[in-house]
């Protein structure tokens, strides 16, 4: 009780002091000419995405405010409901100074950006040391209609790969698979040869979840040479991925896994947490997803599967040729935009102050703060800048939620001392050399904007049905035909027209 009272009093004091500062800052500010006082304390509200179960406590926030000379008020939106929450926020104009927009292909987000609701920032970036370093290709792919409506999140291009139980491989005398056939053989062995040695037939090879994109399907499809959502030919013809041979091969592969029982039978209705739990409990040995999940999987298995050792693979192909290596890039490596609505950020001076704030967030210190926490409290660091989290529970509560506030995730000196995480980071960096981009990402299609996700549902449903054996190839082709007639053909022709426009 006493402690909380003291904190409350401190807060009151902080508010009084900061508001006094703001008052003085406002007095000296000349708003109309766009001149801002770089030393003024910025008062910033931020509509941000939360990937953890609960928002962070104030410990790290206070440090961050100190570091960036600002007063930050977060409004957190849980990741699971970001689509409707962002859409309603846009529709009701209840925004903040900074809005994290992650779904740039969502039609209402796109329309809002195009409408000029947000500041266009590209001309300002050069004035800030960290923002000036954003690579031009990132700016290009994050732009809509050639205009950049916010500071892009710089993410790794392609983060996915395969995580496998190393101790099980060793026990059964198997090598880390290099081809999809070898991966199938591993799945078979994990299912049939009792890799945990408990004498019961209670393991499967793969464990997957109800997600064709971030689950196993899309990553496997890259191994079969499937394009990332769309393929564009020399003469500008666009083909959706599900009309390619690679997609069919991937479906057959998944169907094989399902029919032979090498994958959890209810994968189509399994949630991500259940999937990870199953892996951590030793019910399966192959996890396809983000490579850095391996560290979490190992942490989760502590006390349940203490023998667990993991190995990752990112060089699997269906042919065994190094030249066929490929991995899809989520949103072409654009994690979204930090956007500044004109309704909240009234004038240029305010915008410039906020950009200064974003610039400060990109500093090494801020990155360390938002990634590892406070040195001595959450982590320790050795002389090679390798950080080890010392208090995982505290870190999860106070630091982890800030992960989504980092405008850039790699390229800093400080790094994780955990060998698995280091390996994952290395492989993710390596993935960038083989990344497959979505050629339609920056293209415009009115039909896609209005009906895109309804149409996509038809294909997703048909894909699941094919894998589970409810429809055959004819049935799948019928689904494609109805996709075409329900609007798919228009999407193709609109994309082709848009592509032509960008080429000329």
């Amino acid at each position: 009780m006493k402690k909380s009272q003291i904190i409350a009093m401190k807060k009151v004091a902080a508010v009084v002091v900061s508001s006094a500062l703001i008052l003085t800052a406002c007095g000296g500010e000349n708003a109309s000419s766009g001149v801002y006082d770089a030393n003024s304390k910025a008062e910033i509200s931020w509509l941000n995405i939360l990937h953890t179960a609960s928002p962070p406590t104030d410990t790290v926030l206070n440090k961050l405010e100190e570091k960036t000379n600002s007063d930050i008020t977060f409004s957190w939106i849980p990741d699971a409901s970001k689509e409707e929450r962002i859409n309603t926020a846009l529709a009701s104009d209840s925004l903040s100074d900074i809005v994290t927009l992650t779904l740039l292909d969502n039609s209402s987000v796109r329309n809002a950006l195009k409408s000029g609701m947000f500041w266009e920032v590209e001309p300002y970036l050069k004035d800030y040391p960290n923002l000036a370093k954003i690579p031009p290709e990132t700016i290009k792919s994050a732009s809509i209609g050639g205009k950049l409506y916010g500071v892009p999140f710089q993410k790794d291009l392609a983060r996915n790969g395969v995580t496998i139980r190393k101790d099980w491989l060793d026990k059964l005398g198997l090598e880390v698979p290099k081809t999809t056939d070898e991966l199938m053989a591993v799945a078979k062995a994990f299912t049939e040869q009792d890799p945990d040695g408990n004498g019961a037939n209670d393991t499967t090879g793969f464990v997957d979840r109800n997600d064709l994109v971030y689950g196993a399907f899309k990553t496997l499809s890259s191994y079969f040479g499937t394009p990332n959502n769309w393929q564009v030919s020399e003469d500008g013809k666009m083909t959706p991925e599900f009309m390619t041979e690679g997609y069919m091969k991937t479906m057959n592969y998944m169907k094989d896994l399902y029919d032979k029982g090498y994958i959890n039978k209810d994968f189509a209705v399994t949630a991500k947490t259940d999937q990870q739990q199953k892996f951590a409990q030793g019910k399966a040995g192959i996890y396809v997803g983000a490579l850095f999940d391996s560290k979490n999987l190992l942490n989760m298995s502590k006390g349940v599967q203490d023998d667990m050792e993991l190995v990752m693979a990112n060089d699997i192909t269906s042919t065994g040729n190094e030249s066929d290596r490929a991995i899809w890039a989520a949103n072409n490596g654009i994690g979204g935009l930090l956007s500044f609505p004109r309704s909240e950020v009234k004038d240029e001076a305010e915008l410039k102050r906020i950009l200064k704030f974003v610039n400060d967030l990109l500093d090494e210190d801020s990155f360390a703060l938002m990634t590892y926490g406070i040195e001595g409290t959450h982590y320790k660091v050795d002389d090679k800048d390798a950080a080890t989290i010392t208090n995982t529970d505290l870190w999860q509560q106070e630091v982890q939620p800030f992960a989504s506030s980092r405008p850039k995730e790699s390229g800093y000196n400080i790094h994780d001392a955990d060998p698995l995480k280091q390996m994952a980071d290395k492989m993710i960096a390596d993935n960038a050399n083989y990344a497959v981009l979505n050629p339609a990402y920056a293209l415009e299609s009115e039909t896609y904007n209005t009906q895109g996700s309804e149409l996509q549902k038809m294909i997703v449903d048909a894909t699941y049905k094919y894998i589970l054996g409810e429809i055959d190839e004819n049935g799948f082709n019928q689904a494609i035909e109805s996709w075409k007639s329900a609007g798919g053909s228009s999407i193709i022709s609109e994309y082709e027209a848009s592509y032509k426009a960008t080429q000329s």
Partner: protein
Amino acid sequence: MKMSNPMKVSDAAALKLEGTKKATKRRGQYGILRNKFLYLMILPGFIYFVIFKYLPMGGLIISFQDYQPYLGIADSPWVGLKHFIRLFTEPTFFMLLSNTLILFALNIVIFFPLPIILALMLNEVRHRYFKNAIQTIIYIPHFMSWVIIVSITYVFLTVDGGVINEMLAAMGFQKISFLTSPEWLRTMYMAQIIWKELGWSTIIYLAAITVVDTQLYEAAEMDGAGRLRKTWHVTLPAIRPVIITLLILKIGTTLDLGFEHMYLLLNSLNREVAEIFDTYIYTAGLKNGQLSFSTAVGLFKGLVGLILIMMANKLAKKFGEDGVY
């Protein structure tokens, strides 16, 4: 026996009401002043309805526009019936309509009579503590959220180690993929609703049964009626107005089949039977940001509900009962 004659009391009240009505007519505007406290009591409810039910209806206007949030209602372009035409011509329309109506029918035919039967059965229980205990136990599921109920179902029914499927396997049957097969969706949906809401729905019937005049039972006993006869000829006719009113009200609300419930059950493999208007509005409207289109879908759903309730009301009046209006 304690409540000697409820009929008489209500008759008197009706008479008195009649009296006031006439008085109000005669004295014109003085009536409002005279009954100012009654009007004052109506006020909060009235304000509630205006603010939360009538004013938002103005928003329905956007179903005839291509509503863009930053333009607002005033500046968004008018497109007439475009969104309604899209709804009726989309291949999913008949699937949505039939799924919604089938679940609606199941709700009325299967679920509606159950609480009445249960209430009659509970009424026959003579042991007071036993009766109260049973009542409390069957109320409890009502207070659980759908997320919890669907999660419990998942744990029971999953093919990967779910209790039911393990039992089936142990008895030598094939495992059944309850969660992903369209054939099982409606059964699962109804079973969950019954489990959650059955106990709670008995409350009003039990209350209605307690005011049935005990003299009628005594008279029936004199005529040699057994328990079944008494239930059939005394209890049921006595609570008939309540049943009819609740039925009409239920018809009005059942088109809201429970977005949360269905959204949690819905997946790629059972969509053909599980997608209903509510889930469609959510995915098309909120997730995809098509506010105008989803408003059009919502408006259409509201109209269907209105037609159903009017039909039910008319039917009730035809059978000599009071409708709800």
